[in-house]
């Protein structure tokens, strides 16, 4: 194609896009709780009055901020994708959204008088910190899958802390749920006034660097040899990307996927070169976001569905498609699980583990209702007294067994995916289960809460079913599985958010459940998890030799006569059964499946028969300990164990991300 036809095509597409944006904006302006008809709007907007007030004071600012935010996110996406050479990079995959959310919530709770008054600034800081953290953890290579996974783990980490804060400070953070999922609601022009300068500056810097970015895509070496100041160009691009993303987050909350989709759409239209890429992406980002908001208000008129949830709902499948394409390209890559062997003899390690388990369990059993057992209580068998026996003992034992199940689930998934960061959360089991439960709560508000576990099971099964189906043709390729998991998780969380808005006040039990809780677990719960454990753990043990072989790579395993696909699907099914069972009993407790096997691997190496027993012990210990801390620290108030795990596990996971 000659240069002039390219230019003509570009101008034509720009015209089409502009028209589309204009139409969607008009539809957007006609929507709202005041319910004015189009005729009323057209006739009365020109004169002083309510209609004019509503349009000028509420609806126009909303549409303008939507255009600015969508555009800014898309441009940030272009920049991030170019500098990281990563088609999956965007503000949300780099953890910016979660960071901003956490900072805003913390400021509101802990410094309502000072920092709480400057939500823009605080969100900006949060987004910047989170993206710096992800960059530091990923290291220089910036390889796509790793960035996506690291971003996801950081986001998970931040959002679980945010979740715990919201739960503990229920009244203080009451209204923040909506913003936490992104909303375009504006009351006046102050949001626009704040954002417009930064966004224009960010886009401006990007456009000025467009030529240099073009050269950069040829590769850093070529760029350097062509006399480009590569480092400076990259630094400017990073700064403008962070500026754009953080500004948006601070004004409209975390909105994902626009930054991912818009640049891809534009590239698919055949737009090349950064200057047109940036301009077109801005336009399409705006169209996407406004359309998402129109859809959200059309689905639930009169109420705010977070627009961020809408974009995730639309964007999740898109990410799947992208992951499918990217995963193919990278399918040869393998991640080392990494492991050391400490010189301590294995039986000794096992004994030590068992001793710690007994001590932690005994300590936990001895504490309740604000006091510990004395030696006399132990001698008098106080643990057999009716209430201790009915409430405390089954709860602690259930926690132990669930901890074991989660750890085993982690062992299996990490073994199969050859990825040390795999756990039930990464494969979408957790958020799928959560979505199932929330849909159930909203669809059947009158139904007994006893059925909640089944709804969670179904949700988890559906999401893993989708993942397995989509990856079927690649013989369940590990990296592809992980990426599909990220996409399905995003859709699951979007559904959770939309359902929370729909369910209104009834969400308090749901929030507690989502946070993961060992609260009030009885002997009947213990029976269920024990049965699951007795069936699945021996099966996992039986698979362990094959898992060992799998770590040598597909070719070697196949050469040794193993059916790789069959082993994978068996192990995954087993892992899913364990994960889903745990989710259905205690809600979404993350991190244990990630943490326990990984920590044990550093002690005893990668051989599964050595790994499994110790991981089971550690998983149990961790959850019992978390349950104990949750009961002890604010007694008589209880903190959900899932939150304790998340908060206590944070330092280790950050360390782990740095190391792997």
């Amino acid at each position, binding site marked *: 194609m000659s240069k002039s036809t390219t230019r003509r095509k570009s101008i034509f597409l720009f015209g089409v896009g502009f028209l589309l944006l204009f139409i969607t904006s008009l539809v957007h302006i006609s929507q709202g709780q005041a319910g004015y008809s189009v005729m009323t709007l057209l006739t009365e907007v020109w004169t002083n009055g309510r209609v004019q007030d509503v349009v000028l004071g*509420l609806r126009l600012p909303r549409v303008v901020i939507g255009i600015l935010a969508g555009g800014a996110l898309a441009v940030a996406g272009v920049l991030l994708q170019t500098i990281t050479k990563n088609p999956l990079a965007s503000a949300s995959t780099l953890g910016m959204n979660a960071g901003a959310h956490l900072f805003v919530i913390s400021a509101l709770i802990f410094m309502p008088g000072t920092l709480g008054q400057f*939500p823009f600034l605080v969100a900006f800081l949060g987004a910047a910190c989170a993206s710096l953290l992800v960059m530091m953890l990923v290291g220089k290579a910036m390889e796509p899958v790793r960035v996506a996974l690291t971003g996801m783990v950081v986001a998970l980490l931040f959002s679980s802390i945010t979740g715990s804060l919201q739960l503990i400070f229920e009244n203080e953070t009451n209204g923040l749920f909506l913003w936490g999922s992104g909303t375009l609601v504006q*009351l006046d022009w102050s949001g626009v006034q704040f954002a417009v300068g930064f966004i224009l500056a960010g886009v401006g810097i990007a456009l000025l660097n467009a030529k240099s970015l073009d050269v950069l895509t040829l590769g850093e070496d070529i760029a350097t040899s062509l006399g480009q100041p590569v480092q400076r160009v990259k630094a400017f691009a990073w700064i403008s990307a962070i500026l754009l993303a953080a500004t948006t987050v601070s004004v409209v909350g975390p909105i994902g996927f626009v930054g991912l989709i818009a640049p891809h759409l534009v590239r698919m239209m055949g737009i090349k070169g950064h200057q047109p890429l940036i301009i077109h992406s801005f336009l399409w980002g705006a169209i996407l976001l406004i359309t998402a908001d129109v859809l959200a208000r059309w689905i639930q008129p009169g109420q705010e569905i977070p627009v961020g949830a809408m974009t995730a709902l639309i964007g999740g499948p898109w990410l799947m498609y992208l992951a499918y394409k990217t995963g193919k390209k990278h399918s040869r890559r393998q991640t080392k699980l990494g492991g050391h062997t400490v010189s301590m003899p294995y039986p000794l390690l096992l004994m030590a583990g068992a001793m710690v388990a007994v001590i932690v369990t005994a300590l936990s059993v001895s504490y309740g209702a604000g006091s510990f057992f004395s030696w006399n209580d132990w001698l008098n068998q106080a643990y057999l007294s009716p209430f201790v026996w009915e409430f405390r003992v089954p709860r602690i034992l259930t926690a132990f067994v669930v901890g074991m199940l989660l750890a085993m689930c982690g062992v299996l998934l990490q073994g199969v995916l050859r990825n040390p960061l795999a756990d039930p959360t990464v494969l979408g089991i957790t958020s799928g289960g959560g979505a199932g439960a929330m849909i159930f709560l909203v669809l059947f508000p009158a139904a007994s809460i006893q059925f909640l576990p089944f709804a969670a099971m179904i949700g988890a099964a559906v999401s893993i079913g989708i993942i397995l189906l989509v990856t079927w043709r690649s013989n369940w390729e590990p990296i592809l599985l992980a990426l599909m998991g990220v996409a399905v998780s995003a859709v699951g969380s979007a559904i959770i958010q939309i359902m929370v808005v729909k369910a209104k006040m009834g969400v308090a039990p749901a929030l507690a459940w989502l946070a993961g809780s060992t609260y009030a677990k009885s*002997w009947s719960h213990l029976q269920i998890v024990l049965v699951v454990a007795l069936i699945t753990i*021996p099966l996992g043990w039986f698979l362990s030799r094959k898992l060992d072989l799998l770590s040598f790579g597909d070719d070697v395993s196949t050469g040794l006569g193993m059916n790789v696909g069959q082993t994978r699907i068996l192990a995954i099914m087993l892992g899913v059964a364990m994960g889903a069972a745990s989710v259905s009993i205690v809600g979404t407790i993350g991190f244990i499946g990630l943490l326990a096997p990984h920590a044990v691997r550093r002690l005893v190496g990668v051989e599964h028969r050595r790994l499994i027993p110790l991981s089971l012990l550690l998983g149990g210990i961790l959850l019992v300990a978390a349950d104990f801390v949750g009961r002890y620290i604010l007694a008589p108030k209880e903190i959900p164990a899932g939150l304790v795990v998340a908060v206590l596990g944070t330092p280790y996971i950050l360390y782990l991300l740095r190391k792997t």
Partner: protein
Amino acid sequence: MMKTWLRLAVLVLLISLLAACGGNTDEQESAENTEENTEQMEGTESTEAVTVRDAFGEKTFEETPLKVVALEWTYVEDLLALGVQPVGVADIEGYNSWVDIDAELDQDVVDVGTRQEPNLEMIAELEPDLIITAGFRHEAIQQELEFIAPTLFFDPYPTDETVSQYDEMEETFRTIAKVVQKEDEAESVLEELDAKYEEAKEQIAAADLKTNEFVLTQAFSANQAPTLRLFTPNAMATQIFEKVGLENVYDSGQFEMYGYSEVNVEALPAVEDANFFYVVQDDDNVFENQLQSNSVWQNLNFVQNDQLYPLGGDAWLFGGPLSAMTLVDRIVEVVEEE
């Protein structure tokens, strides 16, 4: 080594499984025992026995419960209105900051944890004769609570559209009174409340408002955006307003289980001719903070004409008869200030 470990593990698991089954049978047996006891008591037709209905069915009490644990604030104040101090209450700090009534909790009432996940062992340690809570919160731990003591579950937000929240409140209050054998006290509290409505009605009429129409809202901010709960006709608070002679103008057009719909400022022009009564926390006053610069808000008739009536942050719109009295006092107070 490995094989031995496996065997050991299976053994331990099996033992726990057996223990689990054992534990469960005990529970069933004890439940059966209580049922038998109940039947025996009914057979002898004890004059003391009281049978009441809650959200999950009928419950019979042979003796008057003396030690009561209340896990929802509404039932705390119901008890206080009857002159009964509960032995345990969930989230006392929250209760004190959200509920403002004349009766006060004794110093020695024990805090039993959060309303969402109350500390079961703490409750058990108080050895209550009765636990009162809301069904929507604690349906999942019904068995556990009933293992500790007979438990009454009420449903403050009836999904049956023919039962108004106000009627539910009165009925629950009477039910609790019946169980704790304070029916006379309950009737006198309700009579006092009715008298208060009549008195307030006259006072409000005397205040000669520009209009008798009102809209009631509870507002808070969702980050920079204020969210307003506009109360619908089925809400208890709306009905209290109607009882003192005011006329509600807001209706969302659909059944709102909790008695309000959440809206933003755009919904206000439709009701701008009414009196605007609102509950807002001092540290989150969306009307003075975020909405000051909003032209829609500023131009609303009730803002322009000074028809704004703040009820105070601790006016509890979801409570029992005593909260209703506080609310009536607040209404009269703000109306007469004009």
